[in-house]
């Protein structure tokens, strides 16, 4: 039984197929980089898995449990957490309240406070704990969003282009932080990313998508020298 599996996903928009029988099974924990040229179907796959979009066919399972089309809030409770490409935080809440939000929703806010402060200190944001998130820089908001995801204590993390728009200086902090969190709680990270350098250094395994389905998967090194992948990107 796979920890995470999609089978035969199909999604059409008008006449265009965004997903055409996409299947992917992941059995073990690890940081999985999901890459592919523009229009490969990464975002649609992401949307289908996270319950934003209903597929036309196919299924999504988590630990063997079918979750196709399950609402996002129920997925969150099943242990699937996500970040957003455009980076979302609650701008009016303080940084601490942003982190405390998920525990509050789940009704176990007690004790979460310590963990939240620990995470803030980890990325050097503790001094902003009582400042509204809107006052943070974009990169800092990225970090805050990530911290919020970890507060959910997820089993599967879906990160949607975490490096997008983050300045190079902060990229290393980000990368180091993700790796640290992975070491702390080794579970399944699925990272959609355009920044090759970033994902190659971060991921333990790379999944390449092309034309609505999975083209190749393998170690970063293997993928970098795979001619079919090169062809997909150049073609």
């Amino acid at each position, binding site marked *: 039984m796979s920890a995470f599996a999609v089978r035969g996903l199909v999604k059409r928009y008008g006449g265009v197929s965004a997903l055409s029988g996409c299947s992917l099974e992941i059995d073990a924990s690890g940081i999985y980089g999901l890459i592919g040229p523009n229009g490969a179907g990464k975002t649609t796959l992401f949307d289908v898995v996270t319950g934003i979009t209903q597929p036309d066919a196919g299924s999504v399972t988590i630990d063997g449990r079918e979750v196709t089309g399950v609402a996002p809030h129920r997925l*969150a409770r099943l242990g699937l957490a996500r970040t957003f490409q455009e980076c979302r935080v609650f701008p009016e809440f303080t940084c601490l309240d942003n982190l405390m*939000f998920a525990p509050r929703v789940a009704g176990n806010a007690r004790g979460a406070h310590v963990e939240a402060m620990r995470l803030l200190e980890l990325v050097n944001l503790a001094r902003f704990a009582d400042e509204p998130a809107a006052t943070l820089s974009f990169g800092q908001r990225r970090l805050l969003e990530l911290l919020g995801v970890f507060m959910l204590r997820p089993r599967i993390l879906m990160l949607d282009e975490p490096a997008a728009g983050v300045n190079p200086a902060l990229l290393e902090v980000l990368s180091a932080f993700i790796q640290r969190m992975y070491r702390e709680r080794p579970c399944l990270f699925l990272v959609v990313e355009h920044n090759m350098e970033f994902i190659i250094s971060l991921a333990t395994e790379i999944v390449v998508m092309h034309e609505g389905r999975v083209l190749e998967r393998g170690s970063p090194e293997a993928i970098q020298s795979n001619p079919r992948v090169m062809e997909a990107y150049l073609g």
Partner: protein
Amino acid sequence: MLKLAAVTGLTLALFAVPSMAADQPYLIHVLVLCCLYAIPAVGLNLMLGYTGLVSLGHMGFAGIGAYTAAVLMVDAGLGFWGALAAGLIAAAVAGAAIGAVCLRFRSHFFMIVTLAFGLMLYAVMNNWDGITRGAAGFPGIPRPGPLGPLSFGSLQDFYYLALSAALFAFLVQWRVVRSDFGRILMALRQDERLAQARGVNAMLYKTGVFALGSALAGLGGVLHVAFLRVAAPATFSFAESINIVLVVIVGGAGALAGPALGAVVYVGLPEYLRVASEWRLVLFGVLLVLLMRFAPRGMAGLLADGWQRLLRRSP
């Protein structure tokens, strides 16, 4: 601590008004009106100010509460307090049911669907002659009967009731805003998709606040018709729904004191001053546009800014 003292002082002062201004029943009448507008405004503030749900049919739910209570009191001989409870429940249930339909739509769609329901509820109040007495109004609604040693028949005594009800509404608002429920509502206004991704069943919470807001509207509606001693569709019309939106906005949406400030500035002062009506409304219209451009947080926002400036100036 300072805030608590200020609120307690204000509350005591408000309760003392009838004994200080016994020879000014009109002032007390206007204060009652302020309470009657502030109560549904608190309900709408929870929806519009905290959750971001701009409902343009809010007073329709006040009407459900009011007419339920009116029919129970006049036709079924139920006492005021039982009728009040029934009116509240009816408004809340209608709010949950109608809200569940409205909430399937977002942004502009939501506004227009709530507007449509407001107009449809008005049509029922106006047209259902056999039950609501139709367009001519439902006269003969009794003032509340005594509760133990307390009576509410006279203007002064009714003022205590209206004031207590308004305070109750503000207390509810304060409790909600400070609770996890309130946090979730505010999160939904800021970013609904993020809140969902963090495990919030958005539909459930939004329906909840719609029902709560409607119940408060119902409370205001029942008191309104008990005060006027007549229920008329005009009290729950589209124009009144817009007025209640403006009370919330002028006062400051998403501020605890917003509905109170709005009711005083938008309802109380113009009534007390009896300004010529057309130009007053032209002025309010223009003021509203200016408010949106330059002070979208309303009176509460202006006051808070002024207070901050004052604090900064003094050493």
